[in-house]
């Protein structure tokens, strides 16, 4: 971003500012059943996810002394989750909301909390249950704003939900750089192929570029297969210190670097709209904190509410030049066997839609080396993005494999 001051690359920033034993790691991952899972509230999914994360780490619920909560479109998850879980004397408790960037941000605050000694085992959880058996997913995110004031005016004008806003962003990129719907389709096809290797993915049948091109228009230039799923469920992770994690069961996944960028132009004139996102600022800052280069990254998990979000993020992180995201996506680098290991669980397009927990959970699975048929051979440095609003909020994480700890 031209109007954001770059942070200097401080070799002692972030986790490296803490003594080694205090450095943050992810030591637990809990995923409920995801997808068309009915009859449970967001709070119930959230509580189950935290219990699963605690069990995964091999600790007791009472060991959790910090809790960060995040809710989706239906709300229902809050600091009240403490009571639901019977957690007492917490040393950290906050509800967070920066939309799709929240999961990444939760890891950042939890990491700072454990590195500073504020808390020692912090659970971060997201849950949502917008799907009901009696209505389609389009009814959920397409709800009109209340019919008064500025929001009412936007809705009355026909600008309802995320689809038109992201479509307007994508069209601007197409007009500026020549990006095509077929190029977007390559992203959808590649991620579906990855989903076929992920037992937790909701959509696992292969698709072709022709299938993408034949899928119905939602909001031009987006077809159905450019748009993410909607899922019910919950995902929680545990962030703790390296020394606490040494006594826990799973191999610890170190949090090596982090950054955020919130450009702040929503519904304002923005020369960058659709062309550059906060990833262009957050990406280099997070990599600098981790002390690694983009060329060191083995696996990439990018937030993919739409195929276009992936394409723009690839450019902004520097995997290709600005404007070259379309040709890059179509060049054969994506999908199983490609040279860029991107969204290896199928992402939100084909895997499951748990906002920023989708890329984060797959990153943890890959870092641990437990991804089965889709496991990356090299998985020491993993880049994770979260994107919220209409490209308004961005969070970047750099995670490491357990081998990087040593």
């Amino acid at each position, binding site marked *: 971003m031209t109007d954001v001051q770059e942070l200097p690359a401080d070799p002692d920033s972030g986790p490296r500012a803490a003594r080694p034993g205090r450095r943050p790691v992810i030591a637990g991952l809990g995923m409920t059943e995801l997808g068309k899972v009915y009859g449970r509230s967001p709070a119930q999914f959230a509580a189950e996810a935290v219990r699963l994360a605690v069990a995964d780490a091999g600790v007791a619920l009472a060991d959790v002394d910090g809790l960060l909560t995040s809710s989706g479109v239906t709300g229902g998850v809050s600091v009240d989750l403490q009571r639901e879980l019977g957690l007492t004397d917490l040393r950290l408790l906050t509800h967070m909301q920066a939309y799709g960037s929240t999961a990444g941000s939760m890891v950042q605050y939890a990491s700072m909390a454990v590195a500073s000694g504020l808390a020692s085992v912090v659970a971060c959880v997201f849950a949502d249950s917008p799907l009901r058996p009696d209505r389609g997913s389009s009814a959920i995110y397409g709800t009109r704003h209340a019919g008064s004031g500025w929001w009412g005016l936007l809705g009355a004008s026909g600008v309802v939900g995320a689809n*038109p806003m992201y479509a307007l962003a994508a069209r601007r990129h197409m*007009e500026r750089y020549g990006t095509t719907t077929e190029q977007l389709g390559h992203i959808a096809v590649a991620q579906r192929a990855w989903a076929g290797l992920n037992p937790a993915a909701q959509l696992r049948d292969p698709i072709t570029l022709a299938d993408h091109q034949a899928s119905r228009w939602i*909001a031009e230039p987006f077809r159905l297969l450019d748009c993410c799923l909607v899922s019910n469920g919950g995902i929680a992770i545990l962030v703790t210190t390296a020394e606490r994690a040494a006594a826990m069961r799973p191999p610890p996944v170190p949090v090596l670097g982090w950054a955020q960028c919130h450009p702040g132009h929503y519904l304002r004139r923005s020369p960058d709209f659709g062309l550059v996102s906060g990833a262009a600022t957050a990406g280099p800052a997070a990599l600098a904190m981790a002390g690694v280069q983009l060329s060191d990254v083995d696996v990439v998990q990018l937030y993919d509410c739409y195929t276009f979000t992936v394409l723009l993020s690839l450019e902004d992180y520097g995997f290709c030049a600005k404007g070259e995201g379309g040709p890059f996506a179509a060049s054969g680098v994506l999908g199983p066997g490609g040279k860029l290991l991107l969204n290896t669980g199928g992402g939100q397009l084909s895997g499951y839609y748990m906002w920023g927990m989708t890329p984060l959970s797959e990153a943890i699975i890959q870092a641990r080396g437990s991804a089965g048929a889709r496991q990356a051979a090299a998985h020491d440095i993993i880049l994770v993005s979260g994107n919220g609003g209409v490209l308004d909020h961005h969070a970047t994480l750099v995670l490491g494999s357990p081998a990087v700890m040593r």
Partner: protein
Amino acid sequence: MNVGPVNRDEATSEFFDGTAAGQFLLRRCPDGHYSEPAVAQCTTCRAADLAFVPAAGGASLVSWTVIWPKAAAAAAEPVVLVIAEFDEGPWWWSQLIGADPAGLAVGARLALDFQAADAEHESVPVFRLAD
């Protein structure tokens, strides 16, 4: 598709007085910078004392999307939504009426129009291709 119903509130009262009179009110600060009507301070210099002033009416096309109805409602017409840039600088998001989206290009000249869902609700700014 026509525009939907919308009611004024305290923050939008003066703006909808404008649309009722066929005007789109922008915000202008003492230094003459223009901002979108919903802002609380100037988007250029952050001045907080903003006046509502009518846009001259000229705008150009920044981006567009065509919203397609679900198959079940196939009889309904697709809706073209646009980002328009007023000649004064601010952007606005609304429908483009009466245009074939196949012929659109960035920079196309747009003109303001106004529609209301019915006589009980406020007049909503929309765009047409300029003559």
